[in-house]
C-alpha cells in the first residue's frame, strides 16, 4: 500500500473513481449482458413460441377457415362462388403453408421436428383429400365431395387438427416451461446482480472511506499541528507519512515550523536587542540633551565674547586708521627731513670741496715751508762748513729755518684745522648720511608701517566681517542647538515609544513557545547581547560562509537536538 499512499491525491481520487466506475461498469456490463441474454431468450421465446404459436394458430385458424370455405364450397352451387372460394382456399392454403414453414423454422428439438413432420404429413394428406374434394366440388359433384369430406377429409382434417392441437399444446407447454426457466434465470441473475451491487457498493464505500481517510487523516493531523502553531506552540512534530501532496504539505509544514521557530527565535533575540537598544537610546538622549544644554550655555558665552571681540575689532580698525594717518604724516615729515638732509649734505660737500681746496693750498704752503727748511738746512750745512765765516750765515740760516718752521707749523696747524674741519665735515656727512639713512629707513619703515596698518585695517575689516559671520554662525548654532534639544526631546519620546513597542514585541513573541530543546530564555540574552552583537556583526561580514542559523543557535546556547526518529529521517 505504500506505493498507493505515495500517489498524488488527484491520482488517488481518480484511481478510486476509476475503480468505482469500473465496478459500476462491470456491474452495468453484467446487467446489460443479462438483459441482453434475457432479451434474446425472450425474443427466442417469443419467436419460437409466441410467434410460432401464432403461426400455428393462424395455420389452425386458416385451416378451419379453409374447412369452412370448403364446406361453403360444397354448400354453394355457384360455380363462380366455388371458384372464388377455391381460390381463397388455395390462397389460404398458401398462407397456411407459409405459416407452417415459419413455424417449422422455429422447431429446435428432434421430437418436435418429428411431430411437425407428422403434422405436415397429415396436412398433406388432408390437403390431398381436400383437393380432391375441391375438385369434386368444382366439377359440380358436391355430393361426392360432401361424402368425401365427411369421411376421409373429415378424419384427416380432424387428425390434422389434432396434430395441430397437439403441436399447439406441445408448444405451449414447452413455451411455458421455457418461460418458467427464463423467469428462474432472470430471478437468479437479478439476485446475482443485487448481490453484486451490494458487494460493489460495499467495496466502493470501503474504498471511498479508505481513500478519504488516507487523505483526511494526515490533513487533520496537519490541521491539528497548524492549530497548535496558531496557538503559539511552535514545538510541534509533523509526521510525514507519504510522498503525495499531503505528504509534501506535511514537509512544508515541518519546514514552516522550523523556519517559524528560527524566525521567532531571531525575533525574540532582535526584540531583546531592540529593547536594550531603546534603553541605550534613551540614556543617550538624556546625556545628549544635557550636552545640548551645555552647548546652549557655551553658545551664549561665545556670543558675548564675540561681541566683545567685535567691538574691539572695530576699535582696532579705527585706531589703525588713525595710526595710518599719523604714519602718513610722519612719512611726509621724514621725506621732508630727508630732502633737508640732502640739501645739508650737498652743502657739506661744498664745504668739503672748499676745505679740500684750502688743503691743497696749505699743502703748497707746506711744500714751500719744507723747501725753505731744506734750504735753511743747506744753509746751515754751508754755514757749518764755512765754520767761522759762516756764523752770520748760520744765524741767517737759523732764522730762515725758524721761519720755515713757523710756516710749517702754521701750515701744519692750518692743515690740522682743515683736516679737523674736513674730519668734522666728514663726520657731519657721515652723521648726515646716517641721518639720511635713518630718515630713509624711517620713511621705509613708515611706508611699511603704513602698509602694515592698511593691512591691519583691511584685516580688521575682514575680521569684522568674519566676526559678523561668526555671529551669524553662532546664531545658527544656537538655533541648531535649540532644534537639537527639541529633536532630542522628540528622540527621548520616540525611544520611550520604541521601548514600549519593544516590550510589546517581546510580549507578542513570548506568546510562542519555541522548540523545547532550546536552553536559555530571552532574559539571558541581555547579558549575552554584547557577544551577540559581535556575533551578528561577524555574521553580517561572513555573509555566506557559515550557515548563520547554526551559528546563531550555537551562540545563544541554543542546540538543536537532532531527533533520530523516522520523522526526521527524510530531513537530512
Amino acid at each position, binding site marked *: 500500500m505504500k506505493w498507493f499512499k505515495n500517489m498524488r491525491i488527484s491520482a488517488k481520487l481518480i484511481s478510486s473513481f476509476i475503480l468505482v466506475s469500473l465496478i459500476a461498469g462491470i456491474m452495468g456490463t453484467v446487467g446489460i449482458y443479462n438483459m441482453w441474454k434475457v432479451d434474446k431468450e425472450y425474443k427466442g421465446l417469443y419467436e419460437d413460441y409466441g410467434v410460432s404459436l401464432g403461426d400455428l394458430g393462424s395455420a389452425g385458424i386458416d385451416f378451419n377457415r379453409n374447412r369452412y370455405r370448403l364446406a361453403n364450397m360444397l354448400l354453394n352451387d355457384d360455380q363462380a362462388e366455388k371458384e372464388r372460394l377455391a381460390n381463397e382456399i388455395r390462397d389460404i392454403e398458401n398462407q397456411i403453408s407459409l405459416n407452417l414453414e415459419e413455424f417449422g423454422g422455429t422447431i429446435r428439438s428432434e421430437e418436435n421436428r418429428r411431430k411437425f413432420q407428422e403434422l405436415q404429413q397429415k396436412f398433406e394428406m388432408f390437403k390431398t383429400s381436400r383437393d380432391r374434394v375441391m375438385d369434386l366440388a368444382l366439377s359440380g359433384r358436391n355430393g361426392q365431395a360432401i361424402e368425401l369430406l365427411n369421411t376421409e377429409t373429415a378424419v384427416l382434417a380432424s387428425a390434422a387438427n389434432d396434430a395441430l392441437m397437439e403441436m399447439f399444446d406441445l408448444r405451449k407447454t414447452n413455451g411455458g416451461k421455457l418461460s418458467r426457466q427464463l423467469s428462474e434465470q432472470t430471478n437468479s441473475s437479478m439476485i446475482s446482480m443485487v448481490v453484486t451491487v451490494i458487494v460493489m457498493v460495499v467495496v466502493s464505500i470501503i474504498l471511498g472511506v479508505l481513500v478519504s481517510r488516507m487523505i483526511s487523516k494526515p490533513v487533520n493531523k496537519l490541521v491539528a499541528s497548524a492549530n497548535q502553531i496558531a496557538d503559539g506552540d511552535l514545538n510541534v512534530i509533523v509526521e510525514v507519512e507519504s510522498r503525495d501532496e499531503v505528504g509534501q504539505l506535511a514537509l512544508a509544514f515541518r519546514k514552516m515550523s522550523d523556519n517559524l521557530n528560527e524566525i521567532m527565535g531571531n525575533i525574540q533575540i532582535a526584540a531583546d536587542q531592540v529593547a536594550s537598544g531603546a534603553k541605550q537610546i534613551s540614556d543617550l538622549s538624556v546625556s545628549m540633551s544635557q550636552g545640548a544644554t551645555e552647548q546652549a550655555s557655551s553658545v551664549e558665552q561665545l556670543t558675548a565674547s564675540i561681541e566683545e571681540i567685535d567691538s574691539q575689532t572695530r576699535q582696532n580698525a579705527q585706531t589703525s586708521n588713525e595710526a595710518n594717518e599719523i604714519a602718513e604724516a610722519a612719512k611726509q615729515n621724514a621725506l621732508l627731513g630727508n630732502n633737508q638732509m640732502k640739501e645739508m649734505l650737498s652743502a657739506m660737500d661744498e664745504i668739503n670741496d672748499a676745505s679740500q681746496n684750502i688743503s691743497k693750498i696749505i699743502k703748497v704752503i707746506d*711744500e714751500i715751508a*719744507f*723747501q725753505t*727748511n*731744506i734750504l735753511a*738746512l*743747506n744753509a*746751515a*750745512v754751508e*754755514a*757749518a*762748513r764755512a*765754520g*767761522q765765516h759762516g*756764523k752770520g750765515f*748760520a*744765524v741767517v740760516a*737759523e*732764522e730762515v*729755518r*725758524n721761519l720755515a*718752521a*713757523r710756516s710749517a707749523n702754521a701750515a701744519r696747524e692750518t692743515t690740522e684745522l682743515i683736516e679737523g674741519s674736513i674730519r668734522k665735515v666728514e663726520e657731519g656727512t657721515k652723521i648726515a648720511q646716517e641721518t639720511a639713512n635713518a630718515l630713509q629707513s624711517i620713511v621705509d619703515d613708515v611706508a611699511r608701517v603704513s602698509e602694515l596698518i592698511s593691512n591691519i585695517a583691511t584685516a580688521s575689516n575682514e575680521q569684522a566681517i568674519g566676526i559678523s559671520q561668526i555671529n551669524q554662525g553662532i546664531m545658527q548654532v544656537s538655533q541648531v542647538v535649540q532644534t537639537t534639544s527639541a529633536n532630542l526631546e522628540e528622540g527621548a519620546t520616540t525611544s520611550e515609544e520604541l521601548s514600549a513597542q519593544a516590550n510589546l514585541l517581546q510580549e507578542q513573541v513570548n506568546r510562542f513557545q519555541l522548540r523545547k530543546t532550546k536552553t536559555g530564555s530571552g532574559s539571558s540574552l541581555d547579558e549575552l547581547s554584547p557577544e551577540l552583537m559581535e556575533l551578528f556583526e561577524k555574521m553580517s561580514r561572513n555573509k555566506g560562509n557559515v550557515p548563520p542559523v547554526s551559528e546563531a543557535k550555537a551562540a545563544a546556547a541554543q542546540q538543536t537536538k537532532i531527533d533520530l526518529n523516522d520523522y526526521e529521517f527524510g530531513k537530512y
Partner: protein
Amino acid sequence: MSESFREDMALMEEDSQKDKYLTFIVDEECFGIEIRYVTEIIGMQKITSVPEMPDFVRGIVNLRGKIIPVMDVRLRFNKPFREYMERTCIIVIDVHDLTVGLIVDSVAEVIDIPSSDVAAPPDLANRGNRFVKGIGKVGADVKLLLDCEKLLTDHEVEQLLNS
C-alpha cells in the same frame, strides 16, 4: 726753536762743525750724521736706476749736472722699503771724495749734540757693519749717530770708484 737756535749759536760760536749733527728720520727712527759730511739736502728727484747695483743703491740722480748715486737708507738697514713721498729727501754726503745721496724718510734738523751726550752703541756681536757710531741723547729722545764711512762697504767703494 729759538732756544735750540741759541744753543746752536753758542756752540757754533765755540767751534766749527764738530758735534753738529744733521738728524733725519728713517722708519720712525731718528738718525744723525755729522754735518761735516753733509754737502746738501735736496728734495726727491727722479732716480735713474742703474743695473748691477746692490738693492739699496737705487740709482743715480742728476743734480745740476752732477751725477750722484743715491742709496736707500731703509734698504741699507734692511728695513722694509717704503715708497718715496714728498717729504722724502736726499742727503748728499761726501765720503772720501765720494758723493752719495742718502734717501731718507725726512730731514729733521741740525742739532748740536755734545760728546757727553753721546753713548757707545750696544754690542751687536759683530753683526752688520757697525753703522751706528754712537747714541746721542737729546732731551728725552735718542738719536742714532751713524758712521758715514761705514755706511759704504768696501766693495761698494770699489764699485763707485770704478763707476
